[in-house]
């Protein structure tokens, strides 16, 4: 009996050890990959239902996941020192592309966000989601922390230029995410609490200032967030229908492909920004709880990996990537459940569409590279 136990145990251990060796060779973190894979599979199951059983959507998403995985595997093998050295170039290219988009951007989704590269339509703002935190980490890498006032000013400029360019596209959601990714680097670098307080005050003023520059539809989103019932058929429709979807799902949900809100198209953008509500409707509180658990695992593991890295660039970038991922989840879930205003932020790895999946997995590739190459890092 004891023998048997050991025997099965050893067989399992051998398999795991084999897999771990493969993963190690690939410079990939096993638990993180498993967490990401579980989320992606969960996402595909939900997407099949949310897209109205559209196989085409699934195929395209699988292709994007494949591309993202390739990007992750490639970036995981890149030496962080090389990555660090190329960061300014990456950032510069991103800025140039954003200017090009602003100038001759292709009109897609009612806003100028795309750059048509012939075969692929490319969103430079996606690149900036990685390039901006990388640039901030690169800048702080050689400097003493917490950052000085001069550094903060410079960092502010490094962040605000791309953020401004994205915001005028106009893509407020992505602009906010880029700003958050950059800001999180600075926060993790040990930004003093009093400076944070000052920035919070400045943000308040900025919000008031920004209000006067907002497009009408953006203002409407803010107003409808404050009271969705004021415009039940217009701007408030999204949030009301998504709350109906989640609320009617109850604890156990209506069952896969059985959510009337989603299936009968009452829920707008059901396969993209509002897919969280589809999960809530079809799989209930348990389904959402499971999803949040998976996300927390991925974020927790990422933070753990970030803490294991040994130089400033790696630490700050990895920390920022991990926290940004959480911010994505929280903003999307908060928006769909009515805690936050409706901003166009997709649910990471689950929402359909765009290059965001590739960017996300690329980010995790970088994070794994920073971790797996830690012994090679020289300061």
């Amino acid at each position: 009996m004891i023998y048997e136990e050991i025997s099965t145990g050893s067989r399992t251990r051998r398999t795991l050890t084999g897999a771990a060796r493969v993963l190690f060779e690939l410079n990939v973190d096993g638990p993180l990959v498993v967490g990401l894979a579980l989320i992606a599979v969960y996402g595909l199951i939900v997407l099949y239902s949310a897209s109205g059983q559209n196989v085409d959507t699934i195929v395209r998403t699988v292709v994007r996941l494949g591309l993202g995985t390739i990007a992750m595997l490639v970036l995981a093998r890149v030496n962080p020192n090389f990555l660090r050295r190329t960061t300014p170039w990456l950032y510069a290219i991103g800025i140039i592309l954003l200017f090009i988009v602003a100038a001759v951007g292709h009109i897609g989704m009612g806003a100028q966000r795309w750059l048509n590269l012939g075969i692929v339509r490319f969103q430079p703002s996606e690149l900036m989601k990685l390039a901006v935190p990388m640039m901030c980490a690169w800048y702080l890498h050689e400097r003493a922390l917490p950052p000085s006032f001069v550094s903060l000013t410079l960092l502010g400029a490094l962040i605000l230029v791309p953020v401004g360019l994205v915001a005028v596209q106009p893509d407020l959601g992505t602009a906010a995410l880029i700003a958050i990714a950059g800001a999180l680097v600075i926060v993790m670098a040990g930004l003093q609490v009093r400076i944070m307080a000052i920035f919070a005050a400045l943000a308040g003023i900025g919000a008031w200032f920004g209000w006067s520059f907002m497009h009408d539809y953006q203002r409407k989103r803010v107003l409808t967030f404050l009271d969705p019932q004021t415009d039940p058929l217009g701007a408030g429709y999204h949030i009301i229908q998504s709350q109906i979807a989640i609320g009617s799902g109850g604890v156990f949900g209506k069952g896969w492909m059985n959510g009337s809100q989603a299936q009968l198209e009452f829920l707008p953008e059901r396969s993209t920004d509002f897919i969280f509500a589809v999960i809530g409707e079809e799989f209930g509180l348990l389904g959402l709880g499971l999803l949040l658990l998976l996300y927390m695992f991925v974020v927790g593991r990422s933070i753990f990996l970030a803490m294991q890295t040994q130089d400033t660039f790696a630490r700050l970038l990895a920390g920022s990537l991990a926290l940004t991922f959480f911010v994505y989840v929280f903003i999307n879930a908060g928006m769909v459940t009515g805690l936050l205003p409706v901003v166009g932020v997709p649910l990471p790895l689950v929402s359909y569409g765009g290059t965001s999946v590739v960017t996300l997995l690329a980010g995790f590739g970088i994070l794994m590279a920073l971790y797996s190459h830690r012994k090679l890092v020289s300061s």
Partner: protein
Amino acid sequence: MPAGRIKDHWGEQRLFEMRALVAGTLMVLLTFTLLGRLFLLQVVHHEYYADLSQGNRVRTEPIPAARGLILDRNSEVIAGNQPAYQLELVPEEVPDLRGTLKALVALELIRAEDVDELMRTIKSRRTFDSVPIRLRMSDEDVARFAVRRFEFPGLDIKTRQTRFYPSAGLAVHALGYVGAISETDLERIDRAAYAGTTLIGKLGVESAYEPQLHGTNGFRELLVNAQGRSVERQGAFIPNLRTKAPASGDDVLLSIDLKVQRVAETALAGHRGAVVALDPNTGDVIALVSLPGFDPNMFGRGITAAEYSVLRDDVDKPLLNRAMRGTYPPGSTVKPVIALAALTYHMVDPEQRKYCAGSFHLPGSAHMFREYHNEHHGYVDLDDAIVRSCDVYFYGLANTIGVDRISTFMAPFGFGKPTGIDISGERPGLLPSRAWKAKAFTRAADQMWFPGETVNFGIGQGYLNVTPLQLAHYAGIMATRGKVWKPRLIAGLRDPQTGEIHRLPPVSGGDVTGVTPEDWARVVHGMIGVTTHGTAAAIGAKAPYPFAGKTGTAQVFTVAQNDRYNAKKLDERLRDHSWFIAFAPADAPRIAVAVIQENGGAGASAAAPIARKVLDAYLLGPDGKLKPAEAATQTFHDQPAPRAPEKIAQPLAPEATTQVPAPGTTTQPSAPDSTAQPPAVPPAEKPASTAVPPVPQVRSTSARQKQAA
């Protein structure tokens, strides 16, 4: 790079770890906030959102019930249903209502002048109910809409049952019509019960029996998507939806005989007028004609404003139901009831012959009451006076009886009040009396009743006004010797599912009492005389059954005192109205009829031939012989019945005591005959009584007894 600061790798590591710890804690807190929110939505308020979600996906679509048919007494369909295309609009699915309607105007599917009315109608309906905006579309209309359909969200062509009247305008004034549900209709119906119903009864039988004809609408639950489109399933799941089948409305069985109706309409065609025929034994209306009429199908398919104004502004007033709403002086047709009044009040000796010199003067007055066409009848008794329609005789008779007695006596015959027919819109006409005049006029000089007005009353002129229905009703009462049945168009209802017929019993209207059988017989004898050797002898000739009638001529234009009435010289519309009332067979009446032809001249020439055709159509079989009577028909024998104790007609009681016989008449109040009093009133009270006046008597009891024997 700031000088003097060296990177502290260990310190930075600790700082980062500290921050990561704080961030981690923060993330856990935020996640719990999120879970709290989810708990609120999915557990606490689950029921609320589940209801909302159910309301989102399930739409209840009404299934209109088939409207009941309307059939005549021979089960011929007068009003049926026909499938037709109609354009329907769901208000909540139309983004720009006025713009959409304007676009439909451009497509010539609706008319510009109807847009405002349609807007009001649409706004008054529930936003998710389908509102018909154009009924009875032609194939061409359907095609014209179909190619542009994508431009009109919320609009759809539906096939619906609509009302169809196969005989077009036949009996339209009895039948009424159906039309689109208007705002005013919505105020009196249960909107939920009418969801899905397009048409509602507007007049006549269609309106009076609307609840029975309408039936009960059913419904069907549909699974709909966010665009409101019906879908088969949701995802992989086919939901369980409820359906309730509609229950068709009851078929209404009319008492009308369309064969007789057709004959009557054909006979009157080309003229303005009315014919009402009824079964005096039940009150069943056999024919109800008012000409000119109109085609009720126009309303069912959606009448245009132009069409409607043509109908409304026509000088011949086709929309007016003359049979029930046209009021005319009855002319000489009232003479039988005046005679009956005189006999009942014992104020005439029917055998006594009076001289008719062609005119009548009230004592002390120069005003001349003339005979029609200035005839001279010479010596006439009561029978002759009815047969030859002697005005002078009845001038005197009316003067003798007095207005209030005539009025009181005539009331139970249905004058001056609605007959109680089972469709609405009937007018009461006018039965004048002193009390009425005192109330009707404001100036003191007008409030007084003049003796001359009583004289005119005797030949049915002056204030007295009747509808053709009232006269037919009155003819029926004469036919049955006092039996009063409320006229009715609806004889029964039929359940369309089971075929079970629910017959409605005839409704009594309170019989005329107090008239002796021999008095009835005497007057009826006079009316038979009218058709054998009297004013209507020409049309009564060779009738295979005995029938009673009375001609009448109602003045439209007052001839000056020294002038003569000359029909040819008068404008057509100022000519006299021609009346004829009749019932047949005289000994066992099965039908009573009243005919008026407006501006037709004398009763005998215009109205009487029409009445004869109606009687023939109803009574004669295909062989030209009298059809055997149905079992229910009552038989009367016009031999004077054995003399019964005399009894004053019940309605005499309220007669005013102030009644004084007109000055100069030969009548004198005699001692009240105790047998002639209502038993309830003791003789001692009579002189002071306000209830019962002394009854003047011209005849001696012995004379009556002699005659009765």
